[in-house]
């Protein structure tokens, strides 16, 4: 077990290293040098060549790429993510600490919603195979998988605005500081993302349940006269959940950064929204820090999922 843990951990290190290089290079090929135009007093001010060289020198961009890269890595290692390129007083670390929890909270809530919907739907669909219940669940799942989640978000907002004259608050509220407002803000995205992902879970639980219900040990359990609920929940479901756990972990990792469109639809002040504003404004210090953060979070969550998987399924460790 320890050996497996160590090996997976060591494999993650070159990946993180590669990710930093990829981000660094992508940010250095931005065309139309972002340094050229700097926003002055309410208007865009175009720098002369001399001024440009001075600004570059002051930021350290006249040095060779390798040196720049190492300097960035040194900052990242110290936990110093720097400041917004356009607003020099806006610390990126501050932004992450303020907005990160909202995004994480939405991801976790979405996962809970997805399990609450997907798990029962998948089990019913598998156990009552080829009945009306199964067909309607599968039809609903197929439809849900074709609906873009950000559009579902827009539609929900539209609905509440037209019928209740209410829309989710856009002001940042923490779970501890103002739970009621926080809940109003996060529940929409969580439901939308939870439904999309719940469809995937339902589909997955159904197919793995169907496969397992055909296994010999399930037949044995049935033959020795166990109640069918015991067979389903104690015997079959436990194994059917294995792939679901993996995909849930991947989903959690992906939505921590990947929920940008849903955050935009609801105007939730999470990290995804910050990223999209930064991309629009070409605020590349913010882009590079946030993308790095999302990638590292994704890698770490994948690692944890691998560990959990190895823990609950011992076959993995000995491969």
């Amino acid at each position, binding site marked *: 077990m320890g050996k497996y843990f160590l090996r997976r951990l060591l494999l993650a290190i*070159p990946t993180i290293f590669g990710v930093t290089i990829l*981000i660094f290079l*992508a940010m250095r090929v931005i065309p139309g040098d972002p340094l050229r135009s700097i926003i002055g007093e309410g208007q865009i001010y175009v720098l002369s060549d001399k001024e440009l060289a001075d600004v570059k020198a002051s930021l350290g961009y006249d040095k060779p790429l390798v040196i720049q890269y190492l300097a960035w890595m040194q900052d990242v290692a110290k936990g110093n993510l720097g400041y917004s390129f356009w607003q020099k007083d806006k610390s990126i670390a501050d932004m992450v600490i303020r907005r990160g929890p909202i995004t994480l909270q939405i991801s976790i809530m979405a996962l809970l919603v997805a399990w609450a919907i997907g798990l029962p739907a998948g089990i019913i669909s598998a156990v009552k195979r080829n009945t009306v219940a199964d067909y309607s669940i599968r039809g609903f799942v197929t439809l849900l998988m074709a609906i*873009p989640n950000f559009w579902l978000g827009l539609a929900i907002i539209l609905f509440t605005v037209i019928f209740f004259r209410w*829309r989710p608050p856009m002001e940042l509220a923490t779970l501890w500081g103002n739970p009621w407002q926080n809940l109003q803000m996060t529940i929409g995205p969580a439901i939308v993302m939870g439904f999309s992902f719940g469809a995937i879970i339902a589909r997955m639980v159904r197919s793995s349940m169907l496969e397992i219900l055909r296994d010999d040990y399930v037949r044995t359990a049935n033959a020795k006269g166990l109640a069918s609920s015991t067979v389903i929940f104690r015997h079959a479901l436990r194994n059917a959940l294995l792939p679901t756990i993996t995909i849930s972990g991947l989903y959690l990792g992906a939505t921590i950064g990947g929920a940008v469109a849903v955050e935009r639809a609801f105007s939730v002040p999470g990290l995804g929204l910050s990223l999209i504003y930064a991309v629009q404004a070409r605020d590349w210090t913010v882009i590079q820090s946030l*993308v790095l953060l*999302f*990638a590292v979070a994704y*890698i770490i969550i994948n690692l944890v999922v691998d560990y959990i998987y190895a823990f609950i399924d011992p076959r993995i460790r000995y491969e």
Partner: protein
Amino acid sequence: MLGSDTSEESAQKKENPLINLCRSWASSFWRFIRSSPIGAFGVFLLILLGIIGLAPGLFAPYDPDKIFFDSLKTPPDSEHWAGTDFLARDSLSRIFYGARITLIVAIISIFIGDVLGFIWGVATGYLGKKFDLISQRILDMFIAFPTIILALLILAALGAGLFTIIAAIALIRIPSTARVIRSVALSVKETQFVEAASAIGASELRVMFRHVAPQCFAPLLIVASAGLGSAIFTEAALSFLGMGVPPPTPTWGNMLGGVLNELFQPPWWLVIFPGVAITLTVLAFNLFGDALRDYLDPRLRGRLD
């Protein structure tokens, strides 16, 4: 008489391999339709979409950029079936023209991404050893990003536009396709006909492309057809975020993005119709993809889910 007839027929068969090919394609297409009525429904929707995409002018009542000065943001009526938008353009026409961009982006990007992923997957699966080890680490690097974040990073670097969004979606496709094809190539590599081909002295390249690659082709089709739906999702999300094909060119994503500025009093027709268009298209691709998967290889079901 009879004998000469058949010989003539066979001569004709030899002369026209193209016709025979078409005939065999048509018969397998027919078998596919019969094997899955739901898949056939998907195909029907896709053909309809394809026709709209090829010639939107035949269906669209107006020019997509034409401005109707007396009807700004009017709800659907007899003149504008899907209403007009915030620049007083006809929504329905824009949805029809949007089909073209959506299909172009999805098909071209999946084609490029999956062909590259296919070649990469076959090569790394068949060659193995050091090449495989290094290429796996490179793929890990790309897989380490949530896909939409990787696409945003590429678009931030290259700028938004038709070609860059195709490049971005193609690039995020490569790693996942390469992984699936690699696993198929790994198992094909162990078969006896591959061993036999190497034994009679075929070069590595020849074995790879003449013997291993054709066996990976059915999985490629399955992966690609499943990918088209997700490519449309990605394109719509990126355009919605303002990072896709820029306005005034209509795409379903940027039509939805236009609504964002007026969320306090959103015109419902501008939200509903483009979304329905996306949903129907993705649904058609998914139904077709699922049916194709069952038709080509039911065993792959577990591996791709």
